[in-house]
């Protein structure tokens, strides 16, 4: 009965005109024509700014939902949005984004748990979560790099110490994690932990990160699949968390030495390649555009969703751009341009609803199962990151004689 009531409420929420326009647009398979990339980047950044203002206090609202509007601030994603704001400040030459990043960093320090961990969930809760801690470390470390302010590095070190303390002996984390199980996407925890260890001259933290990578590279299955990539221990996995895993491995590879670095890169590249081929080969017409990448894949890399996870698509675009450079393989850059065009086409630039205008939905269509009927802040964040990454890559190519 509860489920029926919830479903009816969800459908009713879609009837508000600004929501209905998006639902209908997606049902018809329409996407808005790709406008100028700078316009889209600014629109997404402005949306993030409004999300930060909506939350108050410095953190960024978790997102705008058709049911209930703006959500409370989300410590996890606010943390890495700080890095995006700093990148935008440098990319656009506008210091206001840096100010916003600093506000996030200070808010995160103000709510950091006594032991150093970052709080789980949306809002200010009392429990620590490993993954969230890693994501805020990414923001703090970026703030330390950009501002030189010691308080951000100190906060990152406190967080790193907590992570090292709760780590399993074999390197994985299985306590204070979502569903109390290990996750491969903790590679995005090991990444900032490693960087923190190197930057703060704390070899113990770097060693803890290496232990995790050592465990993770042993968790591969057939065809480049990596175990534990999902939120749960079984079932298909979101491209969002697959991309988290791959990115964390690549960042680890950039900071490690020797065989472990090579292995991290190999594992990441194999997984990224699988998704690249699944994207490029999934088309009705060999000479046409690829279909939107399904949002879920199972262990055999078989698609398991009819909807697309827009965050995952942006994350993969970033990964593919980097692989294009690392492997001298422009096919990856080509795929990233196309998948980003598809995401950009879902971004509504003209809505009168500030929760929609410039934002990126969880899924395409918007009623897809990932963050259904909502605009999560991390989707906009990753679109911004991807657009800046894309433009830097293309500027390099276009500048060549």
């Amino acid at each position, binding site marked *: 009965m509860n489920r029926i009531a919830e479903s009816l409420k969800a459908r009713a929420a879609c009837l508000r005109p600004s929501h209905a326009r998006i639902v209908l647009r997606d049902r018809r398979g329409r996407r808005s024509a790709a406008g100028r990339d700078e316009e889209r980047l600014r629109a997404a950044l402005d949306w993030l700014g409004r999300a930060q203002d909506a939350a108050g206090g410095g953190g960024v609202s978790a997102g705008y939902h058709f049911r209930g509007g703006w959500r409370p601030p989300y410590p996890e994603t606010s943390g890495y949005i700080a890095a995006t704001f700093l990148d935008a400040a440098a990319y656009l030459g506008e210091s206001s984004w840096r100010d916003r990043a600093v506000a996030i960093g200070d808010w995160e320090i103000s709510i950091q748990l006594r032991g150093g961990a970052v709080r789980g969930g949306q809002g200010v809760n009392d429990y620590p979560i490993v993954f969230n801690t890693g994501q805020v470390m990414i923001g703090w470390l970026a703030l330390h790099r950009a501002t030189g302010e010691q308080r951000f590095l100190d906060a990152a070190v406190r967080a790193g110490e907590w992570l090292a303390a709760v780590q399993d002996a074999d390197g994985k984390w299985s306590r204070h994690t979502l569903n109390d199980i290990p996750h491969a996407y903790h590679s995005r925890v090991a990444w900032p932990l490693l960087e923190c260890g190197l930057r703060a001259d704390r070899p113990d933290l770097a060693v803890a990160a290496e232990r995790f990578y050592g465990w993770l590279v042993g968790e591969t299955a057939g065809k480049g699949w990596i175990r534990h990539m999902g939120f749960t221990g079984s079932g298909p996995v979101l491209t969002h968390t697959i991309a988290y895993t791959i990115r964390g491995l690549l960042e680890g590879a950039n900071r490690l030495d020797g065989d472990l670095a090579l292995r991290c890169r190999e594992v990441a590249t194999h997984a990224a390649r699988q998704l690249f081929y699944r994207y*490029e080969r999934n088309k009705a017409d*060999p*000479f*046409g*555009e*690829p279909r939107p990448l399904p949002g879920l894949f199972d262990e055999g890399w078989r698609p398991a969703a009819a909807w697309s996870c827009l965050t995952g698509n942006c994350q993969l675009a970033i990964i593919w751009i980097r692989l294009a450079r690392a492997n001298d*393989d*422009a*096919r990856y*850059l*080509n*795929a990233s*341009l*196309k998948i980003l*065009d598809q995401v950009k086409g879902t971004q509504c630039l003209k809505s009168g609803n500030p929760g929609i205008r410039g934002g990126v939905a969880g899924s395409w269509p918007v009623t897809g199962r990932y963050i259904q009927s909502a605009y999560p802040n991390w989707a906009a964040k990753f679109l911004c990151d991807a657009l800046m990454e894309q433009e830097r890559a*293309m500027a390099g*190519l*276009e500048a060549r004689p």
Partner: protein
Amino acid sequence: MKIAVVTGAGESLLPGILLSRLRKEGLPAECVLRPRAGALRAIRDGLARATRRGLACRIRERLRPSPVMSRIGVTTYREYASAHGLEGWDRPLARIMADLDVELVTFEDLNDNRTAAAIRDRGIDLLLNTCSSLYREVLDAPRIGVLNPHMGPLPRVRGVNAMEWSLFLGLPTGITVHRIDRGVDTGDVLLFEPFEPKPGEDIPALRGRTGPLMVEALVRGARKLADGGAGEPQAKSDGRQYFVMHPRLVKLAERRIGG
């Protein structure tokens, strides 16, 4: 050696010129295999034939750009036909076939049993592909196989937009004639016919003049097989499969024309 030409359903000068050129070369085609056309397609193709030259053609190009129908394409075919003494090259395919006594065999599905039977019943040794069909089960029907003109150097550049990718990567542009197998552009290579882009040429113009080059390459490939030659096998790992090129990369490829 009995040869058949496989065409698409659309209007193109290439198959007709290929038939004429094969006849001149002493390798006359037995038949043309073509998808069965519906009424709407017949009307559209009739319109295309009637308006091949002139304003209506330019309007049609705007709606569905086709380098074969472009002025550059027509001019290039005219020059080619003149060079090889091919008369009536721009007549409708049906007229050319009638004049050369080439049978038309239509099919619903290239890869179904009936098509395969039609090929075997006629004792066809070699199919020459002039369209973008996908070959699967029908590959086993002709005795020797199916030849395809691929718009890039194999094995380096497999897949789609091979010419554009060749330009982008700084590789030689040209046409590879290869046998079609079950992989993507992985079959035995018979020959590579290079062509040089002209400085200042754009991609559509370059594509527009490749039609006759494809004809000549296919004829040379067929001649090589008729004379007892064979293709060179490719190792699967030797090349990469490329996909539809994003317009921003096409622009960069274009910039590389003319050095």
